[in-house]
């Protein structure tokens, strides 16, 4: 017999369901015309730079098939880089090159690929293989994040990223996603990455969950999640809530990575952030969103909103 949770209990816990998220939040607070800024990563980057939000450095943009050969040639100037589809979704089509081995490129997983395979990846990207709705796309090449050594032990073959859900400028919930061997280096909770719920008040871990079960240590590196305290927490919250102002989207998922030298850097924005963050935090979003609505009604001040959020959503008193 499949064990289910009763809808009434879910409601008590304040779990946000997919239908309510779509109708009550995305449909209501995220105007369609503003999606472009989020779905097009080049526009996001441009806007972020204008708003003094740090982003990874852009190396090149490839717009047409005939530019691929020359562009791949030009990439030899960089030891490490990341190729992304400009309008990609769900982390699809991201190729991370961490270094060189003669003529070959080393992927983040350690396997070597030839320049030919890099060109094929670019060609597929331009044809829209990884993009929303399969439209023709562009590819962008940006600097690889040298992630903060403090987080190294929390990730296996990949960059741990921090997801902050911000509603009307109030940071509501946060988690860190750590890639594991099981998730094939991808920070996707479905595929077995560990989701670590983060306390909004302190930046400390609340709990860590893999495949829906609590874990205390990273399954591959053995690092204990109990001791995790994210550095630059103030700046992370600040960045998260500033993105809401920048995009005009009320309900936003902000993906942040910690760079060794630059601190929190905006990786990408998501106008339809998933619900897995509730599983990582073992807490529901609905009550927090209601509180956030009150906070936003109370004050317009950016810092005030964050201060109130830390006060209300703190778990470690």
């Amino acid at each position, binding site marked *: 017999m*499949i*064990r*289910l*949770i*009763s*809808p009434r*209990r*879910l*409601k008590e*816990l304040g*779990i946000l*369901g*997919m*239908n*309510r998220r779509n*109708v*009550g939040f995305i449909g209501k607070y995220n105007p369609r015309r503003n999606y472009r800024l989020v779905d097009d990563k080049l526009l996001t980057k441009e806007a972020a730079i204008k708003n003094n939000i740090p982003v990874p450095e852009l190396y090149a943009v490839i717009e047409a*098939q005939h530019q691929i050969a020359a562009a791949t040639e030009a990439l030899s100037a960089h030891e490490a880089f990341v190729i992304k589809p400009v309008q990609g979704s769900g982390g*699809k*089509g991201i190729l991370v090159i961490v270094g060189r081995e003669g003529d070959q490129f080393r992927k983040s997983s350690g396997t070597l690929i030839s320049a*030919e395979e890099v060109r*094929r990846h670019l*060609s*597929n990207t331009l*044809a*829209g*293989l*990884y993009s929303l709705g*399969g439209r023709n796309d562009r590819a962008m090449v940006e600097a690889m994040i040298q992630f903060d050594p403090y987080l190294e032990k929390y990730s296996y073959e990949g960059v741990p990223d921090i997801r902050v859900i911000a509603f009307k400028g109030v940071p509501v919930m946060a988690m860190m996603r750590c890639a594991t061997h099981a998730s094939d280096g991808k920070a996707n909770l*479905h*595929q077995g990455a560990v989701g670590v719920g983060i306390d909004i008040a302190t930046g400390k871990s609340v*709990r860590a969950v893999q495949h*829906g*079960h*609590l874990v205390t240590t990273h399954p591959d590196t053995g690092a204990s999640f109990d001791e995790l305290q994210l550095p630059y927490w103030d700046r992370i919250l600040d960045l998260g809530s500033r993105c809401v102002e920048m995009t005009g989207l009320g309900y936003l998922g902000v993906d942040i990575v910690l760079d060794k030298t630059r601190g929190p850097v905006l990786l990408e924005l998501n106008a339809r952030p998933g*619900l897995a963050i*509730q*599983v990582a935090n*073992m*807490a*529901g979003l609905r009550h927090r969103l209601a509180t956030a609505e009150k906070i936003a009604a109370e004050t317009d001040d950016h810092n005030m909103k964050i201060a109130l959020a830390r006060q209300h959503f703190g778990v470690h008193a």
Partner: protein
Amino acid sequence: MASKTQIAFIAGTLFLLGVGLTLYKAFSLGFPLVPGEYREVWTIESKISFTPSKDQPVQVDLTLPEPLAGWVLLEEHFASSGFGFTVAEEASRRKARWTRQSMEDSTTLYYKLQAYQPSSAELADLPATLQEKPLLENDQATAMERLIGKLREQSADTDTFVALLVTEFNEESQDLDAQFLLGTFEESPEVVMLAVLAHAGIPAHEIRGIRLEDGRRRQTLSSLLEFHNGDRWVVIDPASANIGMPANFFVWQRGSDALLAVAGGSNSTLQFALVSNSLPAKAVIGMEQRAHEYALLDFSIYALPVEQQGVFKGLMLIPVAALVVVIMRLIVGLKTSGTFMPILIALAFLQTQLLTGLVLFITLVGVGLWIRSFLSHLNLLLVSRISAVIIVVIFMMATTAILSYKFGLDRALTVTFFPTIILSWTIERMSILWEEEGFREVFKQGGGSLVVAVLSYLVMTNRLVEHLTFNFPELTLSLLAIILLLGKYTGYRLSELYRFRDLDKQQ
């Protein structure tokens, strides 16, 4: 809140409109709400096409069918724009006559009738009069005599004589005399057979009519032979030599006269489009009684031309399938690949039947995925890769059709109706999914799509649903209302009760 009241208002209006119209039809017009006893009603649309001769008056005569062999004619429609039109009674036969002074372009005239056969009845008795003997050349007469002599020798009575004659004209290894007669008469085998029967002194004539096949377009007239065995009239199928009236044969006329006469035109053809509807017996009786007011009162699909009726029969089922998709996605939370792919797959299943459809679909998609993974190694651009997949899918469908034909599996032949594009897109989507998210996601979304498709299929083939959508198309408005309301559903999905099941225990 404003949008909520708006939705509630629109949905309420639509729902009441749909239900109201349905109730009106049910109680005022006597349409039964539940499918009771059914009558197979055939709509036969006759299409007369011809090329008019220059500067000549045009006259088109069509002999209209008589109610024979238990057939009941329900209603008739004539389409004749620009023509003078009369229905005349001539020698106890009704004839439709279209006339026009002159015309330039080739044109088409329509005659539509609805008919059903409550029970098959014997044809009425006729006096046995021998048909006219055709004049024969000397060599033809000799061949005829030899053939009749040979058949007489082999047969016991008139029945076996005629049966042998029909077989002789159908067999591959025809009698030399029979071959000769066929060759020199330059007429259809039925005419030659009638000539032989005339010379043998057996009264016989043709029965003209239509072999009924649902959804068939461009059907042509068929002939049966009727002969008198000294005792009574017997019907024989000149194609199969089967004795008796074949099933699903609409008798148009008893006798060999031509149905269609066109003066002032050439290249005339008479073709039929056929659709069968299962109608509740009660409604059919109502149609008989008020054949005229019926057309005014009813705005059901029956008002459409026959060819479109067939299409609409399937089309009206799509909203129901859409409701299934909406429920499965919003309330149950199944993942499907694309919103309407399941509906299209279900429509394909309607043509192949469920089990064959499922097996073929899974096989074709499986093989397609395997081929596509090979194509992806060739490093092709996306557009040409998808096109290549489409071509491979077509090849696979052709192979399946040929193989199944060779093995005598007629069912599998219908796989050609599977929309190629849908199959190719399914394959393409699934393989991208496979590369990006792994097999689990392919299994989830592909499986979800199939489950929803199967459910839609089951709902669409339900007798009651078929009955309601076809006889009460206004119910679609109510369906639309329900779908609109579901669009505002913010409750949990069934799948979320599973997804978040651990949140409780570990608090």
